[in-house]
């Protein structure tokens, strides 16, 4: 049960850890770390899906008849780029927030906002 779906379990555990960090942590950098973890779990999900039992990497070679599916790899390459862009934009925002508020803690930012009405 556990070993048969090893990758799925890893995906689900990583996904939940990531989502939990995003929700529970007040530090903006930690939130982004959680978000990245959450996205990465989906990458693993796609890559695991492409695997074919007993097959090799999708490179044409003599004597090999069964290859794993290359399409999810290509898809997830795109998704990784999107993920990096998201992290970059997020971090850039954190830098600007730090400059504007002097803090990257959610509760402190909210307190400053409330104070200034």
């Amino acid at each position, binding site marked *: 049960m556990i070993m048969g779906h090893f990758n799925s379990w890893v995906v689900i555990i990583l996904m939940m850890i990531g989502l939990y960090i*995003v929700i529970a942590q007040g530090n903006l950098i930690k*939130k982004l770390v959680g*978000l990245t973890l959450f*996205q990465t779990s989906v990458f693993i999900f796609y890559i695991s899906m492409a695997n074919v039992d007993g097959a090799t990497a999708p490179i044409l070679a003599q004597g090999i008849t069964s290859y794993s599916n290359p399409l999810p790899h290509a898809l997830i390459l*795109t998704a990784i780029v999107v993920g990096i862009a998201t992290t970059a934009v*997020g971090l850039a925002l954190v830098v600007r*927030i730090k400059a504007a508020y002097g803090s990257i803690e959610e509760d402190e930012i909210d307190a400053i906002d409330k104070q200034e009405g």
Partner: protein
Amino acid sequence: MIEHLAILQVVLPLMAAPICLVIRRTQLVWLFTLLVSGLAFLISALLLQQVMTSGTISYEIGGWQPPWGIEYRIDQLNALLLLIITSISTLVLMAAQTSISHEIPAAKQKYFYVLYLLSLTGMLGIVATADVFNVFVFLEISSLSAYALIAMGKNKRALWAAFQYLIMGTIGATFILIGIGMVYQMTGTLNMYDLSQRLPEVAQTRTVLTAFVFIIVGLCLKLALFPLHLWLPNAYTYAPSIVTAFFAATATKVAIYLLIRFVFSVFGFSFSFSAIPLQPLLMALGISGIFIASTMAIYQTNIKRLFAYSSIAQIGYMMVGFSLGSVAGLTASLLHLFNHALMKSAIFLALAAVVYRLGHVRVSDFQGLGRQMPITMAALVIGSLSLIGVPLTVGFISKWYLLSALLDKGWWMVAVLVLLGSLLALVYAWKVVEAAYFKKPIPNKRVVTEAPLSIQAPLWILIFANIYFGIDARLSVQVAQSAAQSLFGVSL
């Protein structure tokens, strides 16, 4: 040339975005962006005309046949959405140069246009493509540029709003990605129409059900359905006025389009409405969205925020029509989608004019504005009347179709609730009118004059569109109706 229109639509703004960087003068960048958006509008008008006369257009990118290659597919629904996005984008851009001159530092204005074009590309791409993974990529293109655009707001809270939107938006998009992965796992295809053929075979599996739920939840986050709307009020309030006018009219609409596409075309009507209790769920969330968001709107002191909450309420109306699961209900939703784009872009452009003169849009700032900015305020009042649903405006047309769709089904209780919701709209709209017309100007020496023509012109074009399509709704009703019919035709 004419057979490449479907892709040209998306490629044009994408290619234009980096070109903006090499143009030196901001004025020229603005004109160039306006030109590109205008061309995109022309293309979408041609596409709509082509679709209405000769049916669905299918375009194979790079000559690769679908389902292997990526297909762009334009039917009535896409064509309508493309037309809405490009027309609003062009009109809003006309006011952009004037409006952002007071809101964004001169050195950054060029990047504003780059991001604007990228966001436009993303939205057009989402609508044009028939490949579900392509949808995800374009969704992220439009969202990432949206986060940056919102962060350009003058108030430092814009940054915080953009960050929160980034977190929520990314979670939503990743949910959609998970759903797409599961669907691919079960069918081995990413093409929407191929999917609709293959999904029924595996419809009973838990994987497909899970995929469906992931996609629906992800999309509801993106379209700001109550209670997943938390990112929207701040993002709309603190974004530059032009960005708000553009996004309020298009961004959530694109997500609603995707919801309709996935529910009706990809998963099919009968699966979607029977696999999970979609109808009561969306109906209940729609109705509570109407009431809670409208009530929240009444208590706002920032007018931009007030209308942002009103946007969430209007999404509720669209969801109610959608959840009916009938041709009439879907027609009403599509009509309201079109009409709401007209009224919200007009309202937020009027607010952009106020921000241009005053710097902010608190209710207290509005005191006496009825006399100081009579033309802008008149536009705001007509826009608000349209929002309430007064006859002779587009708002009336959409409410009328929604009510008759509800009564068709015999859901008169919901119909009463929808009407009560409109009364709440009257209350918050009145708040603005009261401040503008019935309170004396604040007795300081502020000299407020009418907004410049560059904002007035697009504003009044939109207002006239509000009235025109409110009196002669044949065109919008015809397109919405035939789009709704063909969506049901696909699934039944």
